[in-house]
């Protein structure tokens, strides 16, 4: 009778405990080394620890590889540390930004700021008076108006690029890309010169949202285009083969199939403009009261409120600015998370 013992699966290529121990000890050695150097030399500060740690770690790992496996392996280890530094340096600012905004902004957050506007308060007043209700309602108004204009134009542009594919496809693809690089202040100046000065002569939410529309169209158009490209061509052919016109095929099959991706595109567009400041400084006038009329009178907004409080300079005003930044950041984070959640589905099955 022979029993066949089932072999246990192994991963001979994975790091062995010995390798891990070696890596860990090099790592600790680098930390220790950076402490020592800081202690005995005049170098000091976070920057010194940071650079010394990486310098020592890099030379330790590279040196170790040099002795055990030669120069090619040493170079490899060196680059290994280098790219890791790249990733760390990329992530540090975002960590710092989120931490700072949360720590400083939370002091300015209380229930009152969501129910009051600044009509009875100056930015330098104590935090108990006034609030950013007008800023929130203003930002909602601005974004809503911009959406009404940019969704159709953005999606039509994407449809032109994916469904019509006419003679202008290449130039328009190019122009949409160029449009995404238009500085926000230029968009503001354009509305100023083309509409506010010659026609309306007055600040309003509508003026601001026109500039935001210009900034939003390329984001929506490009993301929607990516999504529409993912819709298999089979579906379009099946629609037409069933006797559908192009219009009905697009409206009944292509767009519904791309629905969640298109919503992602719209959310990313909102995230792009929600914190846009420069054009609002030129076009909205930044009122301090809740303004329900989107087409006349100055209107406040979160970026404008932050800007105004920041420039007022007193500690209370700065806290207001941080609180405003916190609200804005949370808004952008929520939008962004939503977009990612929907975006992972992209096309419904």
């Amino acid at each position, binding site marked *: 009778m022979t029993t066949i013992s089932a072999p246990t699966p192994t991963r001979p290529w994975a790091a062995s405990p010995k390798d891990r121990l070696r890596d860990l000890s090099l790592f600790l050695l680098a930390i220790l080394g950076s402490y020592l150097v800081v202690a005995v030399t005049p170098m000091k500060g976070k920057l010194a620890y940071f650079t010394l740690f990486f310098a020592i770690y890099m030379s330790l790992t590279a040196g170790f590889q040099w002795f055990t496996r030669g120069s090619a392996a040493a170079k490899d280890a060196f680059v290994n540390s280098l790219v890791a530094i790249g990733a760390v340096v990329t992530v540090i600012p975002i960590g710092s930004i989120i931490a700072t905004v949360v720590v400083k902004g939370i002091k300015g957050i209380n229930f009152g700021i969501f129910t009051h506007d600044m009509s009875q308060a100056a930015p330098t007043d104590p935090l108990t008076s006034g609030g950013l209700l007008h800023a929130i309602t203003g930002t909602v108004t601005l974004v809503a108006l911009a959406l009404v204009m940019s969704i159709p134009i953005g999606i039509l542009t994407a449809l032109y690029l994916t469904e*019509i594919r006419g003679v202008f496809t290449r130039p328009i693809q190019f122009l949409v890309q160029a449009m995404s690089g238009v500085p926000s202040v230029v968009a503001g100046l*354009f509305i100023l010169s083309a509409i506010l000065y010659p026609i309306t002569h007055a600040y309003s939410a509508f003026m601001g949202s026109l500039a935001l529309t210009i900034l939003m169209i390329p984001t929506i158009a490009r993301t929607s285009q990516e999504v529409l490209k993912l819709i298999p061509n089979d579906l379009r052919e099946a629609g037409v083969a069933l006797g559908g016109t192009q219009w009905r095929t697009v409206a009944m099959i292509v767009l519904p199939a791309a629905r969640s991706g298109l919503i992602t595109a719209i959310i990313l567009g909102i995230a792009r403009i929600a914190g846009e400041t420069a054009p609002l400084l030129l076009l909205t006038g930044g009122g301090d009261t809740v303004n329900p009329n989107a087409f006349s009178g100055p209107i406040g907004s979160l970026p404008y409120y932050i800007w105004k409080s920041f420039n007022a300079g007193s500690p209370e005003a700065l806290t207001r600015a941080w609180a405003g930044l916190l609200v804005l950041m949370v808004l952008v984070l929520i939008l962004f998370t939503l977009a990612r959640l929907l975006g992972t589905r992209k096309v419904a099955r």
Partner: protein
Amino acid sequence: MSTIAPERPIPAPRELTTEPRFSDKVFRAVVTAGGLSSLIILGLIAIFLGYRGFEILRSEGLNFLTSSDWSISTDDAGNVTESHFGIAAMLVGTILCSIVAVAIALPVSVFSALFMNFYAPGWLKKILIAIIDMMAAFPSILYGIWGFLVLMPSVEYWAKLLNHYFGWLPFFKLHPYVVTRSPFVAGVVLAIMIIPIITSVSREIFSQAPLDRIQAAYALGATRWAMIKAVVIPHGKSGVIGGAMLGLGRAMGETVAVYTVLNIVFQINWQVLLGAGGNVASLIILKFGEASPYEIKALMAAGLVLFLLTLIVNAIAELIVRTTGKSGR
């Protein structure tokens, strides 16, 4: 049903008369109109800014680009008696800040893109991509205020170090010794803002590096770095340059973040570390508040220059990225 037939001449292709339904004609017209909107908007921007700024551009001529004098005098009645508008210092400052930004952001972005594609485990890669996409979506006012209150003190300290140890290099010279709110500080803030852009373009290009060639390099005994040098870098080089140009364009047009951290002075300054800079976009915000209608025309002209500058940079970037995206397949 036999088909064995004498050789027949090949007829000319038939004229296909696909007459679309009326609804399709409307649909195609509407979509085409929507598609042309980008052309119309960009054209209108150029026309209107040019039209409003024309008076200034004509009276100043080339001086608008070459002089740095920005002054306006009015008589008691408020009429303009004498005016000089020149944005040379602003242009130099814009270019200086953006070059600093790209110089810092490019290596960091390339390294982190390499890390994400070839070094990081899958879960870490996913997290990093999410973080970097999120950074791109953060509003510029957030970077501006954070840069002013949190980052600036450290960056000024780095500037002093740079000047102390590398002052003998011409571009780290500092005279007079003023380091606050310098183009260097603005450049660092801008660098942080454009790192996500360059990183995601680079990551995209690197991930298109042909897998068979990567495996071939490994099969020849290459280390990871040797493989990257032999396969990934040649494949992605021009795409990364295109990404850097995109970042440059974004840095040039950035307004609020630069305005908060930069000391704007109407004097051409090429010293990166010196606390005196210029920036076309910030100039517009700076002067807009108290500008007379006449001065606003000058701001429009400055806006036109900025618009054209970013348009050219973006166009070049787009051309580079597009052509490499194609040849890469």
